[in-house]
């Protein structure tokens, strides 16, 4: 099963194409990294996959041919958007209540145990938490929904190195223990080295390269993901797909 399948997918804002001619199959059971500079179209692709945005061209399906944004798709995908938006005036306990109410599944014991481990007090207002704690809260809420696919948009961009490490550790633990497929975007290459098993390289609204990290490294004779990505991103011509 593919967690995300796109064919000829495009999104236009006014006269600018944020994403063009995107054809892609991301298999299940991976931690897939969407890599590219700012403005490459990563957020646009993720917003299309979670159904927040409607495509201008082509189509995108998720979790084995479910229409993006359909009830079944929303049920199976948890999304943590950029800057981890939370209701700042609600307490942590209220955020748990709201998320539980809005979803068919919610693992309350898991959420409470994790927040206790993280030392996040349930009565604290979400807006009063540190950036790292807000990100952890958003991630905990997403994972407690027991999604089949976890989508993270630039999850660690605003975090300090320790918070980054803790956040990614949580993601990896969920991927390993519960078999959650993960799709995340980042422009921080070094973070992805340890975590990504599938890579989608993007630039200027187009997919340059996509595949299993191990295969890509072997095929292109590169030692690290970072080296591979930099090599491709320096190529100015977007035609070099595969």
């Amino acid at each position, binding site marked *: 099963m593919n967690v995300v399948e796109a064919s000829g997918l495009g999104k236009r804002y006014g006269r600018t194409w944020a994403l063009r001619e995107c054809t892609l199959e991301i298999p299940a059971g991976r931690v897939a990294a969407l890599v590219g500079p700012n403005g490459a179209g990563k957020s646009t692709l993720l917003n299309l996959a979670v159904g927040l945005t409607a495509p201008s061209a082509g189509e995108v399906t998720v979790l084995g041919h479910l229409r993006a944004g359909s009830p079944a798709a929303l049920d199976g995908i948890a999304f943590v958007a950029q800057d981890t938006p939370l209701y700042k005036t609600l307490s942590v306990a209220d955020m748990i209540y709201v998320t539980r*109410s809005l979803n068919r599944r919610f693992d309350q014991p898991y959420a409470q145990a994790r927040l206790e481990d993280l030392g996040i007090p349930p009565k604290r207002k979400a807006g009063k938490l540190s950036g790292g704690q807000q990100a952890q809260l958003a991630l905990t809420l997403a994972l407690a929904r027991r999604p089949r696919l976890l989508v993270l948009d630039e999850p660690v961009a605003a975090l300090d190195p320790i918070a980054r490490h803790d956040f990614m550790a949580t993601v990896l633990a969920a991927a390993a223990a519960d078999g959650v497929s993960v799709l995340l975007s980042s422009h921080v290459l070094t973070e992805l080295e340890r975590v990504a098993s599938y890579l989608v390289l993007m630039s200027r609204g187009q997919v340059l390269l996509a595949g299993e990290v191990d295969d890509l490294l072997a095929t292109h004779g590169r030692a690290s993901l970072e080296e591979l990505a930099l090599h491709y991103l320096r190529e100015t011509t977007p035609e070099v797909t595969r």
Partner: protein
Amino acid sequence: MTAPTVTARRDEGDAAPRPVPWRRMAGVIWRQHRIALAGVAVLVGAVAVWVWIEGASVHHAWDAAIACHPASSAACQDLAGTFNGTWDQMGYAAIFLQLLPALIGAFVGAPVLARELETGTFRYAWTQGFGRWRWALAKLVTLAVVLVAATGAFSVLLSWCYQPYLAAGNQARGLYGNSPLVTVFSLREVTFPAWTLAVFAIGALAGMLIRRVVPAIVASLAVYAGLAIAAAGLLREHYLTPLVTGSPNVAGTAWLLGQSWTKGGRFAFAGNPPLNLLNQFCSFPQSPGGKGGASGGGPSSSASPFAQCLAPHGYTMWTSYQPASRFWPFQWIEGGWLLALSALLIAATIWLVRRRAA
């Protein structure tokens, strides 16, 4: 924590999932909007206490004035004066009370979507299993019902407070009186909650379009102002075809719309008689009439002194008016179109939520 395997969940996911029950939104709405709702409760509660106290003294003054006999005695004139004096304050209060539906509707309605779009939390809310258009529908309908219930209850109190000014026969007693179709018409049992609902719906749509809380509130207040002025100044008098009578005695509680005059069965002139005609046929002491004409603009009195002096010369005055008996039909007509407008605006808002390209 253990979790079901990927395989098990795939099987479960093949059928369309049972939707998350609507009732779950109740607690969500309460937690997200309790501050706004508490604000409405405090505002309406405080004004209600004031209306209750003032209403009691208005009723007290009116009861005393109508119980007094004979009406022409000095004591009764004093009591009438006391009652008429209460209108000074309550008339101004009526103007400010018209702001209530606008303020309540705009401050509750505009942030529902604007705040989510402004802070980015729509990316959280619209990707939960509940589904975004169901989320929007549940929120807007629930908040609308709560506001209509609260302002509906409040409008009953308002109607009680202003009832003495609208009683039939006030003018005959020299008491301030006016048509229920004019004075405080929009503060009554149907129109008050209906206007609140309309501004709420305007606010929700403005929030969806403008995406920022403060500009959306300002925009909905501006739209309300335009709509309220249009309704009072242009629409309301046409809700039902006005009645026309050739009799000079129209009930004091009727809403007088205009006069025209005929002579010998042919149209002579509209409105007040021209000055040359009055000079020719009518001679009045300088200030004619009594206190009956305290109603402000328009034809001032039911028994027009012009009609009396011009009638012997072949002129007939035709008055077009809306009788006070049309109060409830008018309430339901205004409430009806406001409800239809609100439903349309809320539907448009939900449609935009559903198709919005982020």
